């Protein structure tokens, strides 16, 4: 299995979205308030996932332009839920080994009196996978 | 109570409202009441009995009686009135030919229950407060009345009559007994355990047809099991399959129509808990299609002659609502 296929399946599992349901109407992009900020627009997210170009998306800053307002999810006539795709790509980035990866020796530098202990612990949990 | 019933029956005979009376007749012992017809005041005085051993559900007799011409008075206990309604719903009883008197019932003592408790050789029985005092050939026995009752009375649906022309005594209350505890306990077993349980029970069946013939829901002109043309007739349960088939199909045929009157279990000479088959259907119907009590009304559809578009799929048996 190629990396792109693997990513595609992981993404489908995380997001629960079936990108094949998209009929390319573009209503998601028509409704998106962050459209102009984005390199890849909501409909492209869906289409690129279908084509397997997930690595491109992972590298794109568009990921973090999505406000997760869910307007696209609300308006999509086919129930595709583009925002969930975007979120899933974000998670793919987070889950990547080495990227955002946190090791225990990094923690002392992060410690700060105002930071709750719990935040560190949960960050460890999330970023050490 | 007995004298009150006799007086009322005499009056209705005298004024021509009815020309005969369906009730119970005393027997040889304290407990062996036989359903009987009385057509004169004298007959009533001589033999009419009504006491805690008058368990038989008289409604089924009215299928035949209501077609004999004249008008018959029948005394119905609260649970019998459900059967009555169901039979009316199925056009089996000609309503205009019967006169119904609802009689109160405090639960019926049952000789088979006493025997199961080891109280045999009974020569007399009487009520003393909350107890039943039983004289036997080998001494006196005393047990709480509640324990002397048949299972069906322990799970009584209530003392309210569903239909009557007149009622003796106060209007009773509906009750909400736990009727499905035994069914649920069986459901909680593993499939193997349930199989073993039912094999043990049904293997005792002698196919005497008492359950069927007493059942107010079984009023077919000819039962499929008696009809050689049906292709499924059988006179004896020759194999375990036939034991199963008779009881599955019988329960299925009365599903949605069975009022849970408990006559089947009462009359089974082998004490097979047949009501647990009927109650399973009742429980499933309640769970899957909403609460339904057969015989509450004399009109309308039964659960198996109705449907909704959103009914559960049969696969519910494999998952939730299934038996384990």
């Amino acid at each position, binding site marked *: 299995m190629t990396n792109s296929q693997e990513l595609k399946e992981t993404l489908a599992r995380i997001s629960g979205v079936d990108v094949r349901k998209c009929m390319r109407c573009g209503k998601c992009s028509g409704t998106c308030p962050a459209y102009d900020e984005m390199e890849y627009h909501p409909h492209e997210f869906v289409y690129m996932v279908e084509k397997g170009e997930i690595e491109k998306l992972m590298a794109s800053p568009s990921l973090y332009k999505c406000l997760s307002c869910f307007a696209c999810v609300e308006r999509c006539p086919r129930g595709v839920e583009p925002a969930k795709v975007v979120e899933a790509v974000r998670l793919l980035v987070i889950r990547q080994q080495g990227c955002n990866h946190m090791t225990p020796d990094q923690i002392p530098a992060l410690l700060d009196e105002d930071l709750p202990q719990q935040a560190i612990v949960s960050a460890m949990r999330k970023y050490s996978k | 109570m007995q004298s009150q019933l006799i007086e009322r029956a005499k009056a209705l005979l005298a004024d021509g409202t009815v020309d005969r009376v369906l009730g119970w007749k005393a027997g040889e012992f304290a407990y062996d009441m036989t359903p009987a017809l009385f057509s004169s005041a004298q007959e009533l005085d001589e033999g009419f009995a009504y006491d805690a051993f008058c368990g038989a559900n008289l409604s089924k007799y009215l299928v035949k009686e209501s077609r004999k011409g004249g008008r018959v008075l029948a005394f119905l206990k609260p649970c019998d009135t459900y059967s009555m309604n169901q039979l009316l719903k199925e056009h089996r009883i000609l309503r205009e030919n019967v006169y119904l008197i609802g009689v109160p019932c405090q639960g019926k003592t049952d000789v088979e229950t006493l025997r199961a408790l080891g109280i045999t050789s009974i020569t007399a029985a009487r009520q003393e407060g909350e107890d039943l005092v039983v004289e036997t050939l080998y001494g006196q026995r005393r047990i709480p009345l509640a324990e002397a009752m048949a299972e069906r009375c322990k799970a009584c649906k209530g003392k309210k009559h569903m239909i009557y022309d007149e009622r003796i005594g106060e209007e009773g209350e509906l009750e909400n007994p736990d009727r499905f505890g035994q069914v649920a306990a069986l459901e909680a077993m593993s499939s193997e355990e349930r199989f073993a349980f039912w094999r043990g029970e049904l293997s005792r069946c*002698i196919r*005497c047809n*008492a359950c069927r013939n007493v059942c107010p829901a079984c009023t077919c002109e000819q039962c499929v099991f008696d009809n050689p043309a049906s292709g499924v007739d059988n006179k004896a349960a020759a194999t375990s399959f036939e034991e199963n088939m008779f009881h599955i199909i019988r329960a299925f045929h009365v599903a949605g129509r069975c009022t849970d009157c408990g006559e089947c279990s009462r*009359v089974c*000479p082998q004490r097979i808990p047949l009501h647990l088959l009927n109650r399973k259907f009742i429980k499933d119907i309640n769970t899957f299609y909403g609460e339904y009590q057969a015989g509450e009304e004399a009109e309308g559809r039964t659960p198996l002659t109705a449907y909704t578009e959103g009914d559960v799929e049969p696969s519910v048996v494999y998952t939730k609502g299934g038996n384990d």
Partner: protein
Amino acid sequence: MKKLPLSQMPALYAAMAQGGALYLPVDNAAGDAQFTRWQEGMELSRALNTVRSAKDFFFPQTENLVSFRMQGKTIEIIDPRTEGEDFVLFGVRACDARSFTILDKVFLADPVDSYYKSRREHGTVVTLACTRPEETCFCQSFGIDPADPEGDAACWLTEDALYITARTAKGEALLARLDGLLEDADPAPVEAQKAQTAAILAKLPLAQFTTRSFGGDVLMKAFDSPKWASLSEACLGCGTCTFVCPTCQCYDIRDFDTGHGIQRYRCWDSCMYSDFTKMAHGNPRTSQLERFRQRFMHKLVYFPANNDGEYGCVGCGRCLAKCPISMNIVKVAKALEGDVHE
């Protein structure tokens, strides 16, 4: 008279079961006594009698008579019988023991029923005397002494021992097989028990019940009695009385299509059933009154008329206990008494 201490009962059972099967009343799941094939550890039921009578062993509820195997268009006829197993029937009460005599009159009279005969030959009946008869018992009405039962061998259970005596050659043979376990006994305790039981019998509610009035030429009087109508009014037409009855011997012969052939079997039938003796033209007894009458006329009138005055009833009381509507031979006989003796 021989005896063995009660502690030796398991050994007795084991010995009886040697070389065949032993059936004895054992409590079933419903708490009722039921003849059961003995296995290690089983105990004799304390109940007075079984729900099903002992006739099952000679006249089972269903029995294959012949099979037809079909292959394509050919039919092969097969006798399904195999050499039967010897068996001992232990704990039979006096009433059931007498019922075998009645069944014999039917099945062993010419033409002999070879299926029945074979079972009778393989079976040894060991009876057990009653000590606590119940209110439904009326075997004494038919000259049966429950304290001194018939059978191939008879037993008495006392507090500490089982007394046994052989009454037939078969019984002798059985006792011979059990010889190592038994010791000679003084019959005094047995006699004492008989006396005690006799005292109880005299006090039974049905002690005075008799069918004597049905002796003689009462056929038409009984048949024409107007009482049948009210007596049969409540009858459900079920077969309970018939199927628990030790003397009812009617059967039907039917074919079962197995898909590969036909099994012709016989099964108990009940004169209470609407299709009883149904023939091509229909049914000779079209109403429940006629069917109900048939049953009691048979037991009280027809059977004795053809069998030297022997009634088709042994007074076991099963139908009294089990009829769903509590109608029974005692009520019928009492009701008709006046009519037949006008």
